[in-house]
């Protein structure tokens, strides 16, 4: 794959002092665009590979400045506040620039690999001392493979430890090319049953599981498993058992499993994207349930961690 400093990518956040996305103190680059559509997605702003407007209704004064500014005619005033026609919006970000009360924010920043690298390198000081580095997350890093490779290569060349957090849904070719620049992979297991996986995420998990085997055995990259615990969707003991079974028998017993309890911080994001219809309202799992699931994983002889 042709990587280059000037390869452009779309990201939506750079999170410094990120301490739950791999070893040490890290900087996590959140890339935009994801091939999956998990019903419970907690980062809905990460899904589309396109710039979008985050709108804080509470702040809007209904002044109408943004309506005038929008070249696409995507904004109208409604009940004293602005409202965006998301189909018409092309993500110019003009409205965010003019809004006097910062009710509008543009999600998604088009940057070159070099620019991202420079942002990441700022904290090199802390990586050295803590054994940290960069983590590409998303969204799905594999959805922008050339950009991902370019960023990873720049980091590796600068001696920065690289981690990729992926759902694993991409052609083997892509997986191989991107991950050859990764020192560590955080691999998501959303559901072990192919049909359920398809039902909740939009795609089956056969390719994902297959890629996992190859990454672990052929590329021999250290791997951490990440299992989101979403009540009523994938939190049954059976699913966790089967998932752990897969990890321990088909991958390796040295893989640490992180059980990530669902949190509700994503809910407001649906509001801000004016997509409330897509938000599912789920109660986070109880502490006791998390502990019970942790025990299940441990019973296979794997190390299990609650949270990041």
């Amino acid at each position: 794959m042709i990587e280059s400093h000037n390869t452009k990518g779309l990201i939506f956040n750079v999170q410094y002092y990120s301490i739950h996305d791999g070893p040490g103190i890290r900087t996590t680059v959140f890339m935009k665009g994801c091939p999956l559509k998990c019903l419970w997605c907690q980062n809905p702003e990460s899904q589309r590979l396109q710039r979008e407007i985050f709108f804080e209704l509470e702040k809007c004064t209904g002044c109408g400045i943004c309506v005038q500014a929008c070249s696409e005619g995507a904004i109208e005033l409604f009940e004293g506040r602005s409202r965006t026609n998301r189909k018409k919006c092309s993500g110019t970000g003009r409205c965010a620039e003019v809004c006097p009360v910062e009710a509008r924010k543009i999600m998604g920043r088009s940057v070159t690999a070099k620019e991202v690298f420079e942002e990441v390198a700022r904290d090199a000081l802390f990586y050295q001392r803590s054994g940290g580095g960069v983590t590409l997350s998303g969204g799905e890093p594999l959805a922008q493979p050339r950009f991902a490779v370019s960023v990873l290569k720049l980091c590796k060349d600068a001696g920065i430890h690289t981690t990729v957090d992926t759902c694993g849904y991409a052609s083997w070719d892509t997986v191989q090319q991107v991950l050859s620049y990764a020192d560590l992979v955080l691999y998501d297991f959303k559901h072990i049953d192919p049909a359920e996986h398809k039902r909740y995420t939009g795609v089956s998990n056969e390719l994902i599981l297959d890629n996992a085997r190859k990454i672990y055995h052929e590329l021999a990259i250290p791997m951490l498993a990440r299992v989101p615990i979403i009540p009523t969707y994938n939190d049954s003991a059976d699913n966790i058992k089967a998932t752990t079974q897969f990890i321990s028998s088909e991958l390796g017993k040295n893989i640490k499993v992180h059980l990530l309890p669902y949190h509700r911080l994503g809910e407001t994001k649906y509001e801000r994207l004016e997509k409330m219809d897509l938000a599912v309202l789920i109660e986070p799992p109880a502490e006791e349930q998390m502990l019970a699931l942790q025990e299940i994983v441990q019973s296979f002889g794997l190390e299990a961690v609650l949270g990041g």
Partner: protein
Amino acid sequence: MNERIAKLKSNLQLESFPLCIEKFKLITQSLEETEGQPEILRRAKSLARVLDKITIFIEDGELIVGNAASKPMGLEIDHDYGPWSEEEIASLKDEGYTISAEEEAELKVLNSYYKGKSLVGRMGEVLYEDERLWPFMQSGVLFPPWKSREEGSGGGYAQGGLGLAPGFYLMGVDFAKVLNEGLQKIIAEAKEELKVLKFTSANAVKKCYFLKAVIIVLEAIIRFAHRFANLAKEMAAEEANSLRRKELERIAETCLRVLAYPARTFYEALQSFWFIFLLITPSPTAAAGRFDQYMYPFYKRDIEEGRLNDEEALELLQCLRIKDMQLNRISGKLNRQKNEGMAKWHNWTIGGLTPEAEDGTNELSYLILEAAKRCPTPHHTITVRVHEGTPEDFMLKALEVVKTGIGMPAFIGDKSYIEYFIRNGVPLQEARDYIVTGCLDANLPAQSRTASIAMFIVPRVFEITMHNGVDPHTGKQLGPRTGEVEQFTCFDEFMAAFKEQLAYFMRLNAERNNIELCAMKELLPDPVRSSLMSDAIKEGRDVLDRVMPFENGAVMNPVGMINVADSLAAVRKLVFEEKKITMKQLKEALAANWEGEYVEMRQMCLKAPKYGNDDDYVDLIARELYQYWAEVTGTFDTALGGKHLPTAISITAHGPGGALTGATPNGRFAGDVLADGTMSPMRGMDLNGPTAVIKSALKINQDPYQATLLNLKFHPSALKTTEDLRKLSCLIRTYFELGGKHLQFNVVDKETLLDAQKHPENHRDLIVRVAGYSAYFIKLGRAVQDEIIKRTEHQLTV
């Protein structure tokens, strides 16, 4: 927490606190009798009167004895800071403090005795008619502004503690000497010195008074301990419970011995320590020094000889926390705003390098932390000294305590602290023995003291610069004429004008400090503290009347410097570089407090570079300002013989200081709080997390400063696992290795704080870190509460 500690701790939670006048009365009686005698002797005798006569008591379950006031949890009116006006007393009663009608009437009579004789009155003699200084004192450039000649900066103090004022000393007395040698030895030395004294100079006469005063107070302290021995003996005789009877007997034996003679056990050492601590208070800034160092030999010997186990040691250390909680304090209204929540900084310094460059961490250091974890009271404060060789286990232990949310310990970096002393000519070995006094200022045990520290509100000077030396709030010409800013053609001109104004007001600050120092020296000699400093008897001088081995008598302290850095960045970018707005428009916008047509301009200003994001554009301005402050400070002499030295702590003056300051070009509204801490970004302006804040702070050369302050607020989810704590420890170490001085953490989520505002009754024990000290959240003013909530919460990936 065991039953004893739980019970003693519950005694601390009162609905209202009694104001006491017993100490005031005893002192007044004595002073009336000694009229005409040398001041230091009068003071010594008045203290002896207090120690001989004040009501004493031992509370049920107490192991370490020595009450702080004549009533449990009481606050003794402190006469040395000026009278309590009726208005001030009324406002205290409104806030739930109690005083009986008879005592209130008596207080009025006592007050009248002190008209003009207080510290404030004496300073007023000089300040009141001075053309330059009086308008300055009233302007609020120094916080709090003075109201009138008589009332100074707003009423006096009422506090626990049995010693002599002044309270705002930053110093550490020689605890080790008392514990290891006993007071009898010092008394004997003083008597010996008196015998050989030849009156060949005026100083010899002074020395004679001093030595006599020392003998009077030290003997009185020993008698005071004996009063407790007798009381405990009487109580033991009547005690039905045999366990408690034994405890009381042990108290009696201990009090009969300690202070006069060297302590033999950990228990005796603690009791000795506490009596001395009672005598260096009332003081919001009394320091325990390197408690884990000088106490360790006693602990170790007891453990080795099987007299003590860790559980017992822990119980005693918790008792000590509770004793310190009994040292209440409250100040006049304006000072209450300056440091809220019964602010005090009784700092225990632990860990760090020994003079021989070894790691000083020992078992006791861990136990002190464990005691705070088990008995999570806001006081005493703990500060952990960190150097390269600090064990990681110790860091984790300290962070475990941080995690409980009580806002302590604070962490400080040996490297920059030691460098500060080296720069000021202190030998390396001695520098390594530094201690924290007050919230973060450093001193050398028994070798130095800081007596004057004012809060200088830098953004007020920025406003004055914007108006060519005129204070926009009063229209008075307060500073020099540095030019109409509308005429300036480049940023350098603007900066030069600001610096000129700053230097002018700093000089006034220094002058005011000297007036304060002289008044203190004249009116408030303290033979207790003075006798516990190095070479005290040979020197034969009060601690304010001698040049100390390390002389840092007065420090200069900028508050809100970061707001000025942000404001200068906005001016530079928007007015001079991008020319998006004119100076005239900016001034109009500030005068209009950003209202009306200026809403958009405020947005532009808010978007200008802000300190705390690792952005050189503004960080280098902050660096330049702090550098300039340090340089200018060093040009001013103090009345005690040294130079002024720079420090940078803000207590909570950034709240009320902000209230006195108009809108500023960083986008801040008039009256809003200023940046807290001195290395901390303006709240909400740091958008890139704690590493960027740290990188910004590291651009400022902190070495010339006696202290700096950086608060970080974390969401509890950032400190869940040991792994998380290790990462935080790495952050701390990195900061210190690269020249950072101080870090402290508030760990509590927003929801809890909001709930506490709504339902204070459910959160009576919620403790937060304010600025260098911890306080009960519900006791803080609303503005400070809001500010804590708004302070950026460094959260995890969302």
